[in-house]
């Protein structure tokens, strides 16, 4: 009985040592842990399915990285979050890698009869938006301000925690209208109708990506970022409905 226990203990110890050594040494083929904005879920997964992803609201991911989350790469839907982490020394210099546009979506059945953005002001509507700290939530406030429709915010019935939650509520018909990215609308195009936000009212959406400073696999992380910026990456983003990297400096 004692020898059995001893053998088990030695085997366990050996296993732990091997695992520790293996995880400490960066391996070229080990999958990266990529924290990315929720709107990048479909395009990143199909672009590089070999990596480990954690998708969520960019602000929530920022908080997790601040609290020590083991990410190698951080891709945010707004410069604010990457820049804050960069100033805190938690990520290396961020790079803009794509842009997006906002759209208003309504359920297929369109219970509130919304045909244009201005209908939000004139008709009773259950409006669903993302919280103000979420990038798309902030962009929504910008759109409404540019269109002179900030009063419409009184019709908000829920501030969701990320853009996918907004999409879900509208696709399920729970809300009458919601502001999301055009790329999210495409994912549920059979359940929602898109009401276009005019180009002059669009906010300056900038997605930034950076290597996380405490990553143990920085070379591979940088390689991932390079591939996103490459022709292949940019084509994948364009095909998913994202916009090309804006030429003017931020």
């Amino acid at each position, binding site marked *: 009985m004692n020898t059995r226990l001893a053998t088990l203990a030695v085997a366990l110890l050996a296993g732990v040592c091997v695992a520790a050594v293996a995880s400490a040494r960066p391996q070229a083929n080990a999958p990266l842990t990529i924290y990315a904005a929720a709107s990048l879920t479909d395009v990143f997964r199909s672009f590089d399915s070999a990596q480990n992803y954690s998708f969520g609201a960019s602000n929530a991911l920022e908080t997790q990285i601040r609290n020590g989350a083991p990410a190698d790469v951080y891709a945010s839907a707004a410069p604010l979050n990457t820049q804050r982490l960069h100033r805190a020394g938690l990520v290396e210099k961020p790079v803009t890698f794509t842009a997006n546009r906002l759209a208003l979506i309504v359920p297929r059945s369109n219970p509130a009869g919304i045909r244009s953005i201005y209908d939000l002001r004139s008709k009773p509507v259950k409006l669903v938006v993302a919280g103000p700290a979420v990038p798309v939530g902030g962009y929504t406030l910008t759109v409404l301000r540019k269109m002179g429709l900030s009063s419409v915010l009184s019709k908000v019935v829920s501030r969701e*925690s990320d853009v996918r939650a907004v999409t879900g509520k509208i696709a399920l018909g729970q809300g009458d209208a919601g502001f999301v990215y055009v790329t999210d609308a495409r994912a549920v195009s059979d359940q929602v109708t898109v009401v276009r936000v005019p180009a002059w009212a669009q906010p300056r959406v900038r997605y930034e990506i950076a290597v996380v400073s405490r990553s143990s696999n920085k070379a591979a992380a940088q390689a991932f970022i390079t591939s996103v910026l490459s022709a292949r990456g940019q084509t994948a983003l364009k095909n998913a409905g994202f916009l090309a990297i804006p030429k003017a400096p931020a």
Partner: protein
Amino acid sequence: MLVVATGAALLFLVLPVVAIFARVPPDELLAALGTDAAKDALLVTAETNLISMILILLFGTPAAYWIATRTSRLRDAVVTLVELPLVLPPAVAGIGLLAAFGRLGLLGGTMDTLGIDIAFTQVAVILAVTFVASPFYLRTAVAAYEGIDPTLPAAARTLGAGPGRVFARIAIPLAGAGLGAGAALAFARGIGEFGATIMFAGSLQGTTQTLSLAIYEQFDLSFVVALAISAVLVAISGTVLLSVKLLTRWRSGSTTPIPFAPTTPTSG
């Protein structure tokens, strides 16, 4: 060795709770409680859970009695059904509520024609809270009724009391401590509900944002406010736990069989 294991377990369980209170100075915590987000969350949680508890007690007390007085096979089947929400992950509960009561859900069309619109209202919060909390009450209440010495209701029946009177005047008082403990458990579960609420009712400060939802939003806006709200929830939950303990100690007094004084054998 045993002491080390116990010490480690205790430390692991107690540390996060202590950390909530110890992480920032108490005056900061109190100041954070004064913010609108915290006050609104407290109000919403209080209103919705009060109504939810009333519903649970109103429907659950007689329902549990009915279940407890059925034959064992029927009772077991019904209890299993009633316990189902207990083992459902809250997210699944949220999906289920949407599938049943959502606008495109099973009852959505009916509710539309009746003009009932619960999307994103406090009614939706109450539904979610009631759904996840009622099994706690029902399960404990059934056990409480079954712990009553059966000779007592039987004696009442022989004295001419109808089933309703037996229920109201005999069963409820005798099972009282157990019912109280069950209500406390249901209340604790209800105020902590998060997943089903955020999916089914959404989150809007002052309307549907309960304490748990407020923690979630404040966590990356102002960690101090999140800590303060968490401290409130810990305090409430601690009080509930204490009252459950005290009530169950009291309960054992009222449901043990009361021996009748032995009568001298007569021909009566």
